[in-house]
């Protein structure tokens, strides 16, 4: 009994520690003062209005959306191929190959960033553009995509595709008609998660971004100006809401996929 209560208190303290700073975001985003401090000065939406009228922010948002969309598509495409090979194909060196593909999850982002910077600038002498960020984001997103899609592919009976071929379909149309619909929820889930990861990333973008920064890089540049802090709070509020929404949608798709294949849900991100 006592122990149960202590654990309960611990859980509450833990959650407060985790989420209280984020809860501050909307509070000060709607606060009618340039200084981040209590007591609150009254309700205002002027920081959101100022966001609306900052062209540099719009450019940064546009960059981030472009990068995140392309990254999500590329990473999911590569992830789908790898996850399919992992579950259905047999070839020598399979375990090692998959291990290396999953490795970027464990590598420090800053190491990847510096390494890519050297390769792009010193080795190939290419300019830094949105595409260099896309390359880096794809690299770190593919393992997440594989992790999500592995579940979807592993649950598939390998004879389903063979059955479709046996019934007259070519290899590709068997994949399109049978495998693809069955793993589609996983694919949607992967697209959304990769999109979020790319949108949120700061380290890689800071190193590899070209003349136009991404949203997180732009936000970081704003922190140098004290009077921009409420602006960041407003922007942060929007981003958190967006991320949570996408995450919930992604998880919903993943569970629906599992239910379709007649499985109990396990694992996943939520």
């Amino acid at each position, binding site marked *: 009994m006592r122990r149960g209560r202590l654990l309960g208190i611990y859980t509450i303290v833990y959650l407060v520690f985790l989420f209280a700073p984020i809860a501050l975001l909307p509070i000060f985003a709607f606060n009618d003062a340039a200084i981040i401090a209590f007591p609150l000065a009254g309700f205002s939406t002027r920081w959101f209005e100022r966001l609306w009228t900052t062209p540099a922010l719009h450019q940064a948002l546009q960059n981030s959306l472009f990068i995140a969309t392309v990254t999500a598509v590329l990473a999911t495409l590569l992830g789908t191929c790898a996850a399919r090979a992992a579950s259905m194909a047999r070839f020598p060196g399979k375990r090692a190959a998959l291990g290396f593909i999953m490795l970027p999850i464990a590598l420090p982002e800053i190491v990847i960033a510096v390494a890519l910077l050297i390769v792009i600038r010193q080795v190939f002498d290419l300019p830094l553009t949105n595409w260099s960020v896309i390359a880096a984001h794809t690299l770190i997103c593919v393992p997440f995509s594989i992790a999500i899609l592995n579940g979807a592919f592993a649950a598939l009976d390998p004879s*389903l595709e*063979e*059955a*479709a071929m046996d*019934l*007259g*379909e070519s*290899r590709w149309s068997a994949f399109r008609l*049978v495998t693809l*619909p069955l793993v589609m929820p996983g694919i949607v889930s992967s697209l959304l998660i990769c999109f979020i990861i790319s949108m949120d990333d700061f380290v890689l973008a800071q190193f590899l971004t070209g003349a136009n920064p991404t949203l997180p890089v732009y936000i970081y540049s704003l922190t140098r100006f004290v009077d921009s802090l409420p602006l960041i709070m407003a922007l942060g509020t929007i981003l958190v809401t967006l991320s949570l929404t996408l995450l919930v949608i992604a998880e919903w798709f993943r569970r629906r996929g599992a239910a379709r294949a007649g499985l109990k849900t396990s694992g996943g991100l939520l």
Partner: protein
Amino acid sequence: MTALIELKGIHKHYGDYHALRGIDLEIRKGEFFSLLGPSGCGKTTLLRTIAGFEAPSQGTLRIDGRDMQGVPANLRPTNMVFQSYAIFPHLSVAQNVAFGLRRDPRPREQKARAVADALEMVGLGGYGGRAAHALSGGQRQRVALARALILQPKVLLLDEPLSALDKKMRETMQVELIKLQRNVGITFILVTHDQEEALIMSDRIAVMFEGEIAQMADPETLYRRPNSRRVASFIGKMNFLEGRVDEAGERILVDVAGLGRGEVSPEQAPAGATPGPTTFGVRPETLSIVYPGEEPQGRVAPGIVDEVVYYGDMTYYDVRIEGVAEPLTISMKNLMGRPVLDVGTPVGVIWDEKSLVVLSR
């Protein structure tokens, strides 16, 4: 009758593993043919080779006179019922059955009728609208059958289709499959490890061990005249006795250790007979016991009951006979008035030289 399927010298290697070692086989049109063997004997590989999922490393395969080399599974006149049934879980029962009709140019209503007919044929009339993942094992199998048969293939391949069902369901489906095959007249090739199932269902059976066909025959020949000790022990229960062939000329004279001398016909030596030490086989139901008070008819060897296993309709006795290495298993019908004998009872064992099989070593 002409051969619908011809396999000549089929070999299959997976790296160092030699899965099929020279398979020669002809399967006739309209035949119910079974590939029987323990797991790992190559029977499924052979089936998948016919279906087009495996390419043979060597040898030729013809279906209906056409060489199948380089012909992919989707262009072969074969359809398969998979061990897992491979029902598409995201489609309804009707959509599953109609899957193979995608390229069929017939109008929609005709195809819908064909689907309904196919479901009717397998006893699932009215199930078309159901979700496939909500079906029971037996229903899945019927859907898999309807889905394959709707394309009217020349050959239907069945990969252990009954192994996932419980005993009762399996027995029902065995009978239904036989009826279905007779109705549609399509050649069925069944892969199974269950000898009883193969005996019940097949016109002919090929028994496979280690990538080779050990014997190919109709069920009765296979049961009564197995050509080797291995086939004999895989199919049904068989007693093995040591002895020798004394003469293998016009007459085949044998001497069975513990039982005595006799003469056998050439049919009783499916693998041939050569003078010298030999193993003989004899089925439990071809031996019988002289009950106390009964007059023995035929040749009798004295023995002692060593073990009794009561099955209700039958009793299996193991009887030890002097000079015979292992006790002989004898099955006796529990007819009225016949007591179940106790262990240790001295009995006479009636045997007949006509029920002996000379087995190759």
